């Protein structure tokens, strides 16, 4: 392999790692909810769409940027509380499959509501971050992707600090470890679930803004869950660190596979390649690389 090819491979890998950060950003929203309530929230993509559509429509109507952020945050928090009250609470103690199907239905409701309220037009979302690349040792790196990675890192740091150093965070961890024990010591499960859904709404807003600036704010934003699912399988459904590491692995692997293995299959393999990797991991390590191993005794 000559120097140019080596440089090219490095560029593909770096591009993949930066894309992986974006996948992880969506995956973190799933992890938050799964960790505390055991629900695989298929509506996370719809929440991303709802957050981005709400924000961009406010901005287009002349609402200042930070006011729009605040209003959207409030809307996402209200949505989180609303979901807990109307969907999760009535379905408490039902099987995981029932809850999963409920979130599947919820995703359709949120997508429909988002289009009903804000219309079906495609919107430009300009966060003021340059899309132009800069060169480091012959490798083009996108400014936008770097800023997105920094924002994702800040979000992970904030969530980690929240879980470790706040009472609510401790309560989240207690519920995640053992719901019945948490109930026994007087923790209010309904409040914790409502708060965690609101937190997932905040993550959805961050993901929605970054993905929306990349793709445009349009319905396809809800499809980014398809990028997050293999990340979750690989990293484990209940590990924020796992989501980040798996995002990086999946991002780099799928890009390298597309470039170097894709030509043998006629190209266009990255869509399914990530799932193939996830399937192999599932067979070898069902709880993912960082997920908690669950032992059930009968």
């Amino acid at each position, binding site marked *: 392999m000559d120097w140019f090819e080596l440089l090219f491979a490095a560029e*593909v890998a770096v591009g993949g790692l930066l894309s992986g950060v974006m996948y992880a950003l969506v995956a973190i929203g799933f992890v938050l909810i799964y960790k505390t309530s055991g629900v695989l929230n298929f509506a996370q993509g719809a929440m991303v769409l709802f957050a981005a559509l709400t924000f961009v429509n406010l901005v287009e109507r002349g609402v200042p940027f930070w006011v729009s952020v605040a209003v959207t945050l409030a809307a996402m928090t209200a949505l989180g509380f609303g979901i807990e009250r109307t969907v999760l609470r009535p379905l408490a103690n039902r099987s995981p499959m029932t809850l999963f199907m409920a979130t599947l239905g919820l995703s359709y409701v949120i997508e429909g509501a988002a289009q009903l309220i804000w219309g079906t037009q495609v919107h430009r979302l300009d966060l003021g971050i340059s899309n132009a*690349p800069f060169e480091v040792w012959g490798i083009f790196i996108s400014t936008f992707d770097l800023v997105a990675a920094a924002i994702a890192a800040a979000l992970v740091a904030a969530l980690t600090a929240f879980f470790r150093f706040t009472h609510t965070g401790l309560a989240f961890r207690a519920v995640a470890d053992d719901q019945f024990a948490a109930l026994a010591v007087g923790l209010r499960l309904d409040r914790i679930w409502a708060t965690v859904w609101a937190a997932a709404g905040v993550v959805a807003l961050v993901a929605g803004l970054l993905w929306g600036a990349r793709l445009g704010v*349009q319905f396809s934003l809800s499809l980014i869950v398809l990028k997050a699912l293999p990340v979750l399988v690989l990293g484990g459904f209940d590990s924020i660190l796992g989501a980040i590491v798996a995002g990086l692995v999946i991002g780099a692997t799928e890009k390298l596979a597309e470039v170097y293995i894709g030509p043998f299959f006629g190209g266009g393999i990255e869509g399914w390649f990530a799932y193939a990797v996830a399937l192999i991991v599932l067979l070898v390590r069902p709880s993912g690389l960082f997920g908690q191993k669950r032992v059930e005794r009968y």
Partner: protein
Amino acid sequence: MSFLKRVAPALLAAAFLASPALSDEQHFPLQSYRVGPYAAGGTGFFGGFIDYLNLINTRDGGVNGVKLTWSEGETEYEVEKGVEVYQRLKSNPGIAAWNPLSVGIAYAMIDGVTADKVPLITINHGRTDTTDGRVFPYVFPLLLNPYSETSGIVNYIAGKEGGHEALKGKKIAVLYHGSPYGKETIPIYELLAEKYGFDLVQIEVPHPGNEQGAQWLQIRRERPDYVVLRGWGVMNPVALTTAQRNGFPVDRIIGNVWSNSEEDVRPAGDAAIGYTAITTQASGNQYPVLQEIIKTVYDEGRGNLSDPARIGSVYHNLGIVNGILNVEAVRIAQAKFGNRTLTGDEVRWGFEHLQLSTDRVKELGAENLFHSINVTYDNHEGEGYVTFQQWDGQKWNVVSDWIAPDWSLLRPIIEKSSEAYAKEKGLPIRTEADAEGTVSN
């Protein structure tokens, strides 16, 4: 008996004979998509189509007195829902034609409409070999099929380079959507590369195309002179922004006919300024037919678009042109069969005689909105001309003359494919005499 009682029946009878029956209506069932991932295109296209039908009803009282009616069924651009809507609406009386604006739904309907003997219009898209009306009597890829589009794009690039000879040694990369639609043109690009001597790289983007880092790095490594973007939906703005991130000049990217709308470029912001795309119909609302729609339909509160700022956008104008072609096919068929509700097969005859010269297009208020069309029993595309438009950040500007694809080169390939289809399905090859016969249904 009073005078009134004596003359009233005679007056009623005279009125009945002098004009089409009150119940004479021609119906258009619409498999529209106003929600879901492609709603922006669906609302524009079906909005334009309905606006034109409304104009004809309001201004002219219908086509020679026959009112145009329509009913909508939501498909969200999903094939199963499109087929369900087809099954639900096909029993409506007086159906003129189907216009699903979806490759997948159109593919699924071919056998059905052939059995029903009702035309299926796939303007600017669909199976290329359905151009051959000898094999596909009820399918009409009006104005532009995928092969003609490819030829038009290559001719445009040749024009920019100083002729087809100048294509020798150039390299063109085609970035295509990973779907049957995207893959439809792979063989014709290979053929044209061989004929004109340019190097060709074809790169697939998996659906939906919201991540293209690897593909554009490959493009950077290949260093093509041009990239043809054969995209759909979110793939288009992502292609433009990813090209910018990889330092590929936007004025060297040529979009195909489904990468040419405002919805494809606006989300890309500055990255789209200077991007050029092919089209069969110009955008803008300066054309007389658009002005009439604004005055007669929108000013009276009957416009179909919820946002009037979208009047004259690419999809809206495509819907209007589609409306013109459907209505003129009905008018042409009426001239032969009478001013009444026509059967689907009679409208098929109308489409097979849909010849609109540039003069007739001008009479219809659509001069330079689209060029002309010349459909015959064996050519269901109708030799549509194409033009190219460039995005300036606010609107599209036409940057070329009307360009003719290389139909004579394409026709034998189309016939080879359609004849193979006919053999596989055991279908007869129609003659002109067969096409002149119609059945009532």
